[in-house]
C-alpha cells in the first residue's frame, strides 16, 4: 500500500520554497504567509503521523517506494518508525516556530525564507528516507543552504566574521559527508544484489571487521554534525553568527540529524561495530557533556553560551546511544526531542533579547525582567529544562540516558552526571545576570516585551517542554525502540543485562539517591509502564 503522507511532508516546504521564488519581493506579507503555509502544513501532517502510527505493530510504517534508478538499486523509499515520527514532529514544530520567530525579518525576506524551507525539506527527507542514496541527498540539502543563510543574514561576532563562520561550518560538515559517502558506498557494494535500501542492508550480514571500520567512518561523518568532541568547533561559531530562525533550526534539528545518522546507520546496520566502539563513543560523549558545560561557563556572549550548551546536551544524546540498550536509546531520542524544543526556545528568546536590546554581551545586561517579564519567564523555563528539572521534558530524557549508561558503563554515567551540576551553574548564572539585578535605564531607553507572532513561537515551545515533562508517556511509548524493527533490537542487547532484582535495586537505590528529591512520581509512572526493565528484558528474551 502506498502512503503519500511522508512525501507530502517532504514536498510541502520544498514547493513553498519554489513558489516563494516566483513571488515579487514587494509582497512581503504574501511571502510570509506562503512560507508559514509551507512550514505550518507539515505540523498537522506530523501530528497525524504521530496519532495514526500503529504502536502495536511498530516497525516501519507509511512506506512508499518508487523506483528511481533501478539499474543501480536506487529507489525513492520512505517510511517511518517511532523514532522518525518523533523527530519529524520535532522538525515540524521548530520550523513553524522558526517562521514565526523570523516574522519581522526585513532583509531579503523572500530568499531567506525560501532557503530555510529548502533546508527543512532536506531534514524531513533524512528522517523519512529508507534508501541511503536519498538519505545522503537529503542530508546534503539540509546542510548546504546553511552557508548562504549564515553568510548573508548572519551577524559577525567579536571573535569571528560571519563569512568565516559560514565557511568553517560548511567545510567541516561536508568533510563529514565525505566519510559518510565512502561508508555508504562500502555498505552498497558489500551485499548482493547491490542496493541502497536500508531494509535490504539490515539483512546483509556484514563481517565484524568490516563493521568496525565502517562504523568509525559513520561515527566521524555524522559525528561532525552531532557536534561530538573534538570536531564540534564549527558549532559555537556557526550558531553564534547565524540569524535566530537558523540557529533554532540548526541547533534544534540539524544536530539531531547527526545523532540520527549514527543511530540509524551506525547502530542499525552495523551493530557489531557499534558494540565494539561503545565505550569510545560513551567516553567521548562524557567529554562532550563536561567540556561543553565548562566552556559555556566561560562565555560572556549569550549565543555562545547556548551554542556550547548544545554541545553539552548533544553529549547526553550520544551517551544514551552509547549505552546500546533500549532504555538509553529511548532516552537519547527523548533528549533529541527535548533538547530540540528547549534550544529552539533558547535561541528564539536570545534572538528577541538581541533584537530589542542590541546586545548579546551579558555583563552589560541586568534587570531585564522588569521590562520583558514574559521573555524572562519563558527563558527560565527553558533553563530549568536544560538541567533536567523534574516536570520538564529534560528530566525524563536525561534520566533515561544516564540510567541506560549506568547499566552499561557505570563509571561514565557517574562522571557525566557532574555535567548536570555544571549546567545548573551556568544556566542559573546566565538567567540571573540577564534578568535580575539593577536595570540600567540609561543604556536601554526602550525595551519592549515580545510581540504577537513572537509570543506564538516562544510560549508554544515552553508549554511543550512542560507538557512533555508532566506527561511523557505517549512520546516514550512512541519512541520505545524495543518495539521497533526486530533485528536491530536483537543486536543491541546489552552486554550486561541486569536481572530483575539487580535493576530494581538500581531503580530504587542509586538512581534514587542521585536524583534525590527530583524524582518526580508522575513522570516515572508514565514511562515505567512501558520500559520497566522487566518488561523489556522479557521482550529481549522473546526476540532471542
Amino acid at each position, binding site marked *: 500500500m502506498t502512503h503519500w503522507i511522508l512525501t507530502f511532508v517532504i514536498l510541502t516546504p520544498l514547493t513553498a520554497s519554489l513558489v516563494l521564488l516566483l513571488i515579487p519581493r514587494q509582497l512581503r506579507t504574501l511571502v510570509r504567509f506562503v512560507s508559514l503555509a509551507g512550514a505550518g502544513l507539515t505540523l498537522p501532517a506530523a501530528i497525524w503521523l504521530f496519532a495514526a502510527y500503529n504502536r502495536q505493530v511498530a516497525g516501519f510504517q507509511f512506506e512508499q517506494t518508487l523506483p528511481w534508478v533501478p539499474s543501480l538499486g536506487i529507489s525513492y523509499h520512505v517510511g517511518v518508525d517511532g523514532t522518525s515520527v518523533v523527530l519529524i514532529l520535532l522538525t515540524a514544530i521548530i520550523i513553524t516556530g522558526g517562521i514565526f520567530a523570523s516574522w519581522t525579518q526585513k532583509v531579503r525576506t523572500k530568499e531567506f525564507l525560501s532557503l530555510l524551507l529548502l533546508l527543512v525539506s532536506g531534514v524531513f527527507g533524512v528522517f523519512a528516507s529508507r534508501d541511503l542514496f536519498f538519505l545522503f541527498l*537529503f542530508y*546534503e*540539502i539540509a546542510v548546504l543552504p546553511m552557508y548562504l543563510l549564515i553568510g*548573508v543574514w548572519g551577524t559577525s561576532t567579536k571573535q569571528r566574521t560571519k*563569512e568565516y563562520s559560514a*565557511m568553517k561550518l560548511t*567545510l567541516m560538515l561536508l568533510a563529514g559527508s565525505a566519510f559518510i*559517502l565512502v561508508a555508504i558506498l562500502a555498505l552498497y*557494494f558489500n551485499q548482493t544484489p547491490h542496493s541502497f535500501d536500508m531494509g535490504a542492508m539490515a539483512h546483509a550480514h556484514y563481517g565484524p571487521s568490516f563493521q568496525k571500520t565502517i562504523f568509525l567512518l559513520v561515527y566521524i561523518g555524522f559525528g561532525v554534525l552531532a557536534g561530538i568532541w573534538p570536531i564540534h568547533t564549527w558549532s559555537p561559531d556557526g550558531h553564534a553568527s547565524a540569524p535566530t530562525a537558523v540557529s533554532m533550526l540548526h541547533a534544534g534539528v540539524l544536530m539531531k540529524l547527526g545523532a540520527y545518522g549514527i543511530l540509524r546507520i551506525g547502530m542499525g546496520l552495523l551493530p557489531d561495530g557499534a558494540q565494539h566502539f561503545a565505550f569510545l563513543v560513551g567516553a567521548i560523549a562524557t567529554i562532550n557533556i563536561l567540556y561543553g558545560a565548562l566552556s559555556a561557563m566561560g562565555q560572556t556572549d549569550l549565543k555562545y553560551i547556548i551554542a556550547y550548551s548544545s554541545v553539552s546536551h548533544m553529549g547526553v544524546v550520544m551517551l544514551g546511544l552509547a549505552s546500546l540498550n533500549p532504555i538509553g536509546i529511548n532516552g537519547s531520542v527523548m533528549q533529541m526531542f527535548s533538547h530540540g524544543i528547549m534550544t529552539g526556545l533558547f535561541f528564539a528568546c536570545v534572538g528577541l533579547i538581541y533584537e530589542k536590546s542590541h546586545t548579546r554581551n551579558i555583563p552589560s545586561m541586568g534587570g531585564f525582567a522588569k521590562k520583558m517579564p514574559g521573555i524572562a519567564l519563558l527563558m527560565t523555563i527553558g533553563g530549568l529544562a536544560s538541567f533536567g528539572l523534574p516536570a520538564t521534558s529534560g528530566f525524563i530524557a536525561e534520566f533515561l540516558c544516564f540510567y541506560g549508561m549506568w547499566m552499561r558503563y557505570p563509571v561514565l554515567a557517574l562522571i557525566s552526571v557532574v555535567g548536570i551540576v555544571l549546567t545548573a551553574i551556568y544556566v542559573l548564572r546566565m538567567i540571573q545576570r540577564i534578568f535580575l539585578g539593577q536595570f540600567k535605564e540609561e543604556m536601554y531607553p526602550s525595551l519592549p516585551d515580545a510581540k504577537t507572532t513572537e509570543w506564538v513561537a516562544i510560549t508554544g515551545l515552553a508549554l511543550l517542554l512542560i507538557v512533555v515533562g508532566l506527561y511523557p508517556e505517549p512520546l516514550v511509548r512512541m519512541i520505545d525502540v524495543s518495539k521497533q524493527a526486530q533485528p536491530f533490537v536483537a543486536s543491541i542487547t546489552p552486554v550486561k543485562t541486569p536481572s530483575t532484582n539487580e535493576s530494581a535495586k538500581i531503580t530504587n537505590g542509586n538512581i534514587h539517591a542521585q536524583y534525590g528529591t527530583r524524582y518526580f512520581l508522575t513522570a516515572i509512572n508514565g514511562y515505567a509502564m512501558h520500559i520497566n526493565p522487566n518488561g523489556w528484558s522479557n521482550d529481549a528474551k522473546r526476540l532471542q
Partner: protein
Amino acid sequence: MPNDYSSLHPIILLTVLALFIILLDIFLPKKKPAFLGWLVTIGGLIILLIDWHSPDAKLWDGLVNFTSYSRAFDTIFLLTLITVSIASVAEEGAMSFRGEYYGLLIFSTVGLMLIASSGGLLMLYLGIELTSMCLFTLVGFAKREKRSAEAALKMFIIGAIASAVMLYGISILYGVLGSTQFDRMSLAVARLDAAQSMALWLGVAFTLAGIGFKITAAPFHMWAPDVYEGAPTTITAYLSTASKTGGIAALLQFILLGMHSALLEWTPIIMLLAVLSMIVGNLVALVQTNLKRLLAYSGIAQMGYIMVAIAGLQATNGSMSVASAYVYLLLYSFTNVGGFLIAQAIADVTGSTEVSALKGLHRRSAPLAFGMLIVLFSLGGIPPLAGFVGKIYLFAAGWNGGQHLLVLLGAIVSVVSLYYYLMVALQVYIKDPEEKSRITVHSSLSAAISICVVATILIGAYPRPWVELGQYAASGLQRVSSMNIARTK
C-alpha cells in the same frame, strides 16, 4: 553488412554543413549578426537525429566501428557544439571570420566523432589531430589580442610535442603487438611473454601521455590555464568540455578494447594521473583569482575524479566505469559550458574575467547569479544537482573496481574543492557590488546559458534516463570487447 555506409552519414553531413557555412558566409554582409550559430544548431540537431537512426557497422576492416558507444558520445559532442554555437551568435557581430569560426568548430566535432568511432589507434590519432588542429586555430582566433595569440602558440607547441610522443608510443605498440587495430592488439597482448612487457609498458605510457595532454590530466595540464584564459571564452568552453570528452572517449577505448588484459601496464599510470590531477587541480585552484583559470584547474580536478572510475576498469566487467564516466562527461559538458558562458556574459559588460568582477552579482543580474550558483554547486557535487549524481556514480565505479583509497582521497579533496567554489558563491551572493548598473545579456547567450543550467538541474533531479544512456554507451564498448575475448579463446 560490410558495405553499408549509411553509418557514415552523420560524419559526412557534418562536413558538408561546415563547408556550406563557410561558403554561405562569403555572401552575407560583414559586421552584422548573421545567426549562423542557429543554422549550426538546426543542422546539428538533424544530424543528431540521423546519428541515432543509423545502424551499427564495422567498416574498412574495422578501421571505424559505429556502435552505441560512438552514438552516445556523438550526442555529447553535438550537444556541446550546439550550445557553444548558440552562445557564439552573440559574438558574431564582432567577428571578422565567422564562417571559418563555425567551420573549424564543426570540423573539430567531426574529429571528435571519429575518435569515438575509431576501431584502432590509427583512426584515434587522426581524430585527435583533426580536433587539435582546428582548436589551435580557434584558440588564436582573436588574433589581435596578445593573450589569444600567446595561448594559440603555447597550445600548438605543447600539443605538437604531445602528438609526437603519442605517435612514438603508437609505433612502439605496433612494433610489439603487430597491429594498431584494437581487436588484434588485445589478442596480441594476451599472447605476449614477459620479456616484451617493458616495451609494452613504454608504448602504453607514451600513448597515455598523449591522451593525458588532451584531457589536461596532471602532470600534462600545464598548458590548460594559460590557454583557457587567453582563448575566446566560447572556445574555452568548447575546449574544456567536448575536447576533453573526446580524450576520455579515446582513453576508454584504448584501455578497455586494446589493453584490458595488460592490467599492470596501465593501472598504475591511471592511478597516478588520478591522484595528481585531483590534488594539483584542487589545491592550485584554491589560490586562483581569475574565473577562467579557476575553472581550468577545477576541470583538471574533475578529470581526476573520472580517472578514479577509469582506474576501476580493472574490475572484471568495466561497464560501470564506462557508464559513470559517460554520465559525468555529459553533465560536465553542460555545467562547465554554462560556467564559461556566464563568465563570458559578465566579461562582455565588465571587461574582466576576474572573480572579483562577480562581486554582488545577485544585485546586478539575479538570473546570472542563480545560474552561477547552480554551476558552482554542481561542480562541487552538491545535491540535487547533476554533479552530485555524477560524482557518486564515478566513486561507486571506482569502489567497484577496488580503488578504495582513491575514492576516499576523491571524497576528501572534493571538500577542499568546495572551498573555492564557495568563495566564488561568496562574491556572487554575499558581497555587495561596487557598481550598481544591471548586467544585460544577449538573448542568444542567455538561451545557451539557460539550456546549460536547466540541463544541470534536470540531470540531477531525475538521473535515470542519463544513467541508462551511460549504460547504453558502455554496452557498445562491452559488446566489442567481449567479441575480442571470444576470439582470443
